[in-house]
């Protein structure tokens, strides 16, 4: 579909000229095709790259000399993850906890509030950061574990570890109906 020259031939000009062909090509179809392909590539490209959360576990080699730090139990908070998206936390030893054990939920009014309050309290009374030990029970989901680690990231806790749950702590969860 070459474009027609409709702008009139003008007057005069008696000489018969060979009609000049327009060099313009209709690009509509080409543009259509190009946009179709663009749409295809936009849709197939992964727009949002997956994000990652780094997780560092304590070294677990048996043959190495165990480095055990004595930490004050008053600044150690243990978070037990039970079923139905619930957690239970305590500070100190499970048998004679200094604070808790308290059942808590996720979210900004649940675990995050507790973490912020308690870490501020520990910082104030002892001048050191709070240590958090996360113990997921076998009834917890992967999402719960990631959520707890995420809350710890949000509140800026630096010292934390994931550990295996003990029988006493399972008992604690059972008592509160979280296992």
């Amino acid at each position, binding site marked *: 579909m070459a474009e027609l020259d409709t702008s009139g031939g003008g007057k005069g000009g008696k000489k018969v000229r060979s009609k000049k062909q327009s060099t313009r090509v209709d690009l509509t179809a080409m543009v259509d095709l190009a946009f179709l392909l*663009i749409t295809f590539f936009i849709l*197939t*490209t992964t727009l949002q790259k997956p994000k990652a959360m780094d997780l560092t*576990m304590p070294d677990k080699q048996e043959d190495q000399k165990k480095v055990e730090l004595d930490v004050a139990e008053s600044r150690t908070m243990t978070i037990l993850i039970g079923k139905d998206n619930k957690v239970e936390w305590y500070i100190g030893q499970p048998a004679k906890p200094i604070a808790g054990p308290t059942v808590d939920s996720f979210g900004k009014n649940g675990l995050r509030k507790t973490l912020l309050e308690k870490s501020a309290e520990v910082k104030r009374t002892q001048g050191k950061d709070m240590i958090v030990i996360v113990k997921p029970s076998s009834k917890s989901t992967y999402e*719960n574990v990631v959520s707890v680690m995420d809350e710890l990231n949000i509140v800026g806790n630096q010292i934390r570890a994931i550990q295996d749950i003990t029988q006493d702590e399972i008992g604690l969860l059972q008592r509160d109906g979280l296992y």
Partner: protein
Amino acid sequence: MPRVKVPRKSTAIDMTAMCDVAFLLLTFFILSAKPKTQDPITAIVPAAASEVALPENDFAAIIVGQGKVFYNIEGQDLRMETLKAMGEKYGITFTPEQITSFANTESFGVPVKQLPQFLNIPVAERGDVRQTGIPVDTTDNNELFHWVRETRKADIALHNAVLTVAIKGDSKEEYPKIAEIIKTLQKQEVNKFSLITSLRKVQK
């Protein structure tokens, strides 16, 4: 009376500039495109506020969902090298076709003994195959342990880089399965790894 004829304007618009832009964008998208990877299982990753992006190279992902474990190595050369090493370890000889096929396989979840069979199936038909997952248990000698180990070795040999191991777990997966994988990684002193998450805004 002669009627005054209004010269008719052409309705055609100059498409050249539009065409230029369209093709420029097209080129950009083609070059930056990395097709969506289709995992054999759908793992809905949990959301977290972490904004660390995953590395593009020297990276392997362990995909966990419905109690099954799948493995994905990034990069074709790394895949081929790992497969050869695994073949030696388990006494399986892979044909060149199978190795090429493996280099183009995104993620897989079959025991290594069934791998040659699996690789003989054309890629298009693999969706119908039920994959049983890579065997993982608490012993020292499970297959996932060796896959990760051989990938790490191959990465050092090929790129002189440290492999990043990532776990892509389904949010509803029970924790013991993840714990099993973490233990497997810790046995080979991989104490730092990434958990793949989707981005969530922090609720204020």
